[in-house]
């Protein structure tokens, strides 16, 4: 059984906040260098809000807080993209004890919702690559009847592969896209933050596994 709580999301927020410079530096190599600033700002605000609640909010409630902070206060692409992801998770993951397959379904739903607002697809050098690979890898593990810890590991591992695959891609969306071929050789910033979110979430869930 996977146990979900606001703690998982606090850890995700901390990870993003401490990666601020790294994410901005990556973004700066092929775009405008503000990805870390945008992300850290949103997740700091959301974290404050979660921590201010008493009693501690549920995973779904915390996830919705992140989503609304992103929708309300973070403009650019990240507000609606990550806002949609966390809003979708909050809609689906409304129980505190779930199977790994439920986590899969939640992220799959998030991915679909995302494709509704963004035209970017796998291969376009965006965070979609991380998300899509993570889901593919996870679905294979589920099809193979793997255990929850194995499914979670596959999720994180797929995210990593998707993230790393962006290095050799040509950016098709976002500011980096105008660089064309010149964007090859650099990891995508959004794909990086998405990997950090997924891997941190998985690590924190695994640490709590009974």
């Amino acid at each position, binding site marked *: 059984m996977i146990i979900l709580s606001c703690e998982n999301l606090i850890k995700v927020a901390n990870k993003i906040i401490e990666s601020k410079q790294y994410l901005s530096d990556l973004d700066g190599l092929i775009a405008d260098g503000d990805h870390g600033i945008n992300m850290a700002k949103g997740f700091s605000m959301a974290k404050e809000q979660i921590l201010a609640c008493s009693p501690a909010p549920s995973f779904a409630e915390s996830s919705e807080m992140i989503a609304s902070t992103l929708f309300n206060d973070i403009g650019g692409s990240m*507000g609606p993209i990550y806002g949609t992801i966390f809003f979708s998770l909050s809609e689906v993951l409304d129980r505190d004890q779930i199977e790994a397959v439920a986590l899969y379904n939640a992220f799959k739903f998030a991915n679909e919702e995302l494709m509704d607002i*963004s035209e970017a697809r796998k291969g376009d050098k965006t965070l979609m690559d991380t998300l899509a690979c993570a889901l593919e890898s996870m679905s294979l593990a589920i099809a193979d009847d793997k255990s929850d810890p194995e499914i979670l590991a596959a999720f994180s591992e797929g995210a990593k592969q998707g993230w790393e695959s962006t290095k050799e891609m040509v950016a098709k969306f976002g500011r980096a896209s105008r660089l064309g071929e010149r964007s090859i050789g650099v990891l995508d910033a959004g794909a990086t933050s998405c990997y950090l979110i997924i891997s941190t979430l998985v690590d924190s869930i695994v640490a709590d596994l009974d």
Partner: protein
Amino acid sequence: MQRLINRPDEVVEDSVRGYVKANQHLLSSTDNPRVIKSNWSPTKGKVGIVTGGGSGHEPAFIGYVGKNLVDAVAIGEIFSSPSAKHFADAMRAANGGAGVACLYGNYAGDNMNVKMAVKMLKREGIEVKTVVANDDVASAPLDEKHKRRGVAGEILMWKVAGAAAAQGYDLDQVIAVAQKAIDNTLSVGIGLSSCTIPDVGHPNFNIDPGKMEIGIGHHGEPGVSVEDICSADVATRKMLDTILHDELFASGDEVVVLISGLGATPINELYIVYDSLCDMLDAHKITIEENFIGNLFTSLDMMGATLTMMKLDDELKQLVQAPCQSTGLSKF
């Protein structure tokens, strides 16, 4: 970084506050500090005109809030789309019960945030329709027109739609004429220097001395070619040819010409470009009915200029020439 600012991450807050204080005869702030509204908004029964986008393009977007122009605007960080909530609040501020036309530029962030805002407003029973400006010829070929960015042509779209709404057009009519306006408008830019986002602190990209970038975007998105700086005549010819290549304009047309500096180019150079352009359009038998020249849609402290041309029919001509008042554009 040679800037007159307080904290780099408060540039937008501080400047919007000053702008509102300075222009109380035209506009006011709202409960959302990232939304300002015209003093004539909302007007009961009038379609509300909304736009928004990243800051750093002043007078766009705030400078086009006023009378018979934009009713409310959502204000983003420097070069970054306003949030979905900011767009939604701007729509609420502009809603006079006859629906809202949100007329903005084609950028991924703006597209997504507007889309979410429209959803939010729908839940509240407010009808919002959108037109996405894609006038920047250099940003994609004609057969991928939907990928083109929106640039200074947006000003003409707001002008036309603002006048139409003031004249009692309903929402569908406003949307139709705004779409016609932008479909008849093409722009292209030339960059001569980079620009510095205060929160970043160093130039956003690089243009070598003696070089210029044709087709540059107004956030510094790379253009179609980097070339040696040429004379204003030749540069104007290059811009015009880029626009004419689309074959939207033909001999006998009446047009509006809008030339904007990108921020740091002295405005006398814009008039040099206009002077060249007049001769070239004369030769093409294209008549300039209206011109707007100045720092109208900038990119912080970038050097360079953009050329925008809009093809007129009787309806567009009347709407472009109708009176309006704002800090960015006024017609008596």
